[in-house]
């Protein structure tokens, strides 16, 4: 059985004719060619496939593509600028050596983006709890937590600067 599904991914609309059982992550990776999102377990534990659906981090391996019609989906490919310049979170991951093999990284980035959008002033412990949603086998997590913490501080500082600027 084939079903017509319309998806909005990174601001672009796609029409797909797919089996209803096709998962969101398979559609993103293999039908749309967005291979930045990875598959680590296919049972919702490792979080390598984390993407944002209407701003919230979700496991793309646990959703059928057909379930997210009409939603705004964001993947790791949306983070860097079109010229390839990394965003602040990506830069923080690099500076803190928050990635080694890079396989869990897209999931970690999207998890952090979703979290920081919801909670711009997290404590380190809150960050650690959120990072515990996903698995990383290389880093021991410390540098991932530090990278997210640093990014949150930088965003707060930038926001404050903006406020100060607008007051003048």
């Amino acid at each position, binding site marked *: 059985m084939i079903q017509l599904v319309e998806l909005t991914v990174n601001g672009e609309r796609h029409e797909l004719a797919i*089996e209803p*059982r*096709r998962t969101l992550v*398979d559609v993103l*990776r*293999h039908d749309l060619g*967005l*291979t*930045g*999102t*990875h*598959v*680590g*377990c*296919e*049972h919702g*534990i*490792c979080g*390598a496939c984390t993407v944002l659906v209407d701003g919230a981090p979700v496991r793309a391996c646990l959703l059928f593509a057909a379930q997210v019609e009409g939603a705004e989906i964001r*993947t*790791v*490919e949306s*983070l*860097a600028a079109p010229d*390839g310049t*990394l965003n602040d979170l*990506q830069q923080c*991951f*690099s*500076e803190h*050596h928050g*990635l*080694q*093999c*890079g*396989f*869990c*990284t*897209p999931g970690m*980035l999207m998890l952090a983006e979703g979290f920081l959008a919801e909670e711009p002033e997290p404590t380190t412990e809150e960050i*650690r*709890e959120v*990072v*515990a*949603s*996903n*698995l*990383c*086998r*290389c*880093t*021991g*997590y*410390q*540098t*991932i*937590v530090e990278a997210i913490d640093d990014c949150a501080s930088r965003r707060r500082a930038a926001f404050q600067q903006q406020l100060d600027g607008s007051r003048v």
Partner: protein
Amino acid sequence: MVEPHFRRDGAWVGASVPRREDPRLLAGRGRFVDDITLPGMLHAQFVRSTEAHAELLAVDLDEVRTVPGVVAAYTADDLDLGDITALLDRPPHEFVPTAMPVLARGKVRYVGEPIAIVVAKDPYAAEDGVEAAVVEYAPLQPVVSDTAALAEGAPLVHAEAPRNTLVDVSLFATEGIDDVFAEAHTVVEVRTKTGRQNALPLETRGVVADWDDRDEQLRVQTCSQVPHQVRTVLAKCVGLDEKQVRVTVPDMGGGFGQKCVVGREEIAAAAVALRLRRPVKWIEDRRDALTAAFLAREQRYVVRAAFSADGEILGLDADVVCDMGAYSCYPFTAGIEPLMASAEMPGVYRVPAYRVRGRAVTTNKAPTAPYRGVSRPQYVMVVERVFEKAARALGMDAVELRRRNLITVFPYKGVNNITYDPGSYLESLDLCEKTLRDEGWFSRRDDENGGDRVIGIGFACFSERTGYGSGAFAQRKMQVVPGFDISEITMDLNGTVSVTTGTLSHGQSHETTMAQIVADRLGIAYDRVKIVQGDTDRITYGWGSFASRSITIGGSAVAAASVKLGDQLREIAAHLLAGDPEAAVLEDGGVRVGDRWMSFADIADVAYLKAHLLPKDVGPGLSAIASFDVGGDGTFSNATHGCVVELDPGTGGVEILRYVCVEDCGVAIHPQVVEGQARGGIAQGIAGALFEEVRYDDGGQPLAPSFMEYKVPTAMEIPDVRIEHLETPCAFTENGAKGAGEGGTIGAPAAVLNAVNDALRHTGVELDDTPIPRESIFRALEVAR
């Protein structure tokens, strides 16, 4: 270009420069095996055994072939491939060769063993196809533990291996060792069983294979730490010449040893691609990765140690049995774990008398491969437990007892016939203890006003042989002897260089660290250096990355090749500038001869485009090749780990409050990368100590087929790690570097286990097996009460 302020003393080596790998991996532009799609590609999955041990009576794939989307399905008989066989040059009483068929033939030996391969137009259809297979078994009694394997009259996993023993070596046996034990003031014994673990790269194994009709070559893109070994085995299994097989490795999502052996699935998928002349992809799903991939670490130790009254260790007598599962892995064989443990066990201590028996037994469980640290996490844990027990028996402080016995004069020739190069064994212990003391952990431990919760502190001292050269591996008597590395460097018209390495980075950052090494040798920025790896058509035979060998051996080879190219550049420049080649120096991306300077690009312009201007005895082009092998016994990195835990006796819960690692890997090429390796390794060691175990029921059915049962620790369980560096440069690697990949994993189980036992000091409970999850601590405490 990177700002020079990142450089240490003007050198790239020693500076934590931005990783070259990061931009693509962070932007989702990496290319992992499953990211590769070829036109007309088929998808493979495997019919796998549901029995641990059985005669294979019939495999019926007729129904499979009728499933919509399925293109073909094959058994072992259909494909008729050669076996994967790894050998040791040892007599039959020490080593029994066994073959691992690519697909099971006649018999299955573990749950998950591949029996047939199904290829379909999409992965969903391939799984549908697998479900339609009908396999008829005649079950045999499974052998599911090392003790069952060695029991009198046990069923045989391999008919050719009596008592299910694949390797049985007795080594060293210092003369008079029995007298040493008979006359010793104190003898302590440690009995330990360590759990079976999965190395668990987050990217499961996988391959894309296709036949290139134009080049008449089977192209295999696979996530392997050892591409040349995959080529050799694949060529042999399918009956092609080596040149007809090209193995390349794209980005790889971790390996940790699981991918440093040749997998049967990658051979089967490639064989089907060859047969159908169509691309075939196989991606292992997590259930198969947890149950049917290569596992590791299940070992049993009985170790006795003799001490004098004043705490001098006099002898070590060890019996090691490693449960290697159903097959010997290529190229290392089932000897990998027992031979490592037997050769290295005395470790950092001055042990005058040593005897060891090391055995590999075969059981009806998924086969094993080397996993980060290979036996060293286990024997270090055992030896460190020895020191804790001896300290208690002698009424001494355990740290002081270690101090008294550590090797302090180098080079030190051990009782195990290994020469240890200089390290900072004592200094690392002193600094680790001091750090924890200065942070106040000892007073918190002794304060004990914290209510029910008890603090425990544990240490682990160890060294780790890194950079095993051909000579060291030959001592293991492997028939295929890894060791050297070859590097080829080429400069292009822009004056930038490409450098090949036979090692294979997959998280270790070699694209950055090896570029730093080359940059220093040539006097150019590290972003002018491209590292080429993982392509058997472009790289002379290489051994890949494992055993912390890449920077010690591969890094030395790229340095040697760079020096050769530098000599060429100096010679050409001196000729063109009419100066003395001896006075020519590499500087700022060019060559200075006296007061004149010529850029590499200008030299390259001559070398390639105006070759008639070259000196008479210099050929055209700019390239050089060099190899490196570590002579002697290799170089030893060392570290001391200190772990502070808090135990809740009411629940058995253990929380790690502090972790300190004082490490010495010689010259750190990139300190941040070294710290990353240590932290990641420690996390895996903690995982083995407290959380992860691949368990089976009595019938050999795996009990942890998903992440719900196989408990991989998260950011909530893994603590922050304070790392302190000591630097004892290696005298015989090109950069003074020693290996840094495995140490974290090696020290952590011992440090954690000692800390837990320290926290149990008032209970009479002592735990020597791993893992020690909350439940087993709780149960042990209940029994004691």
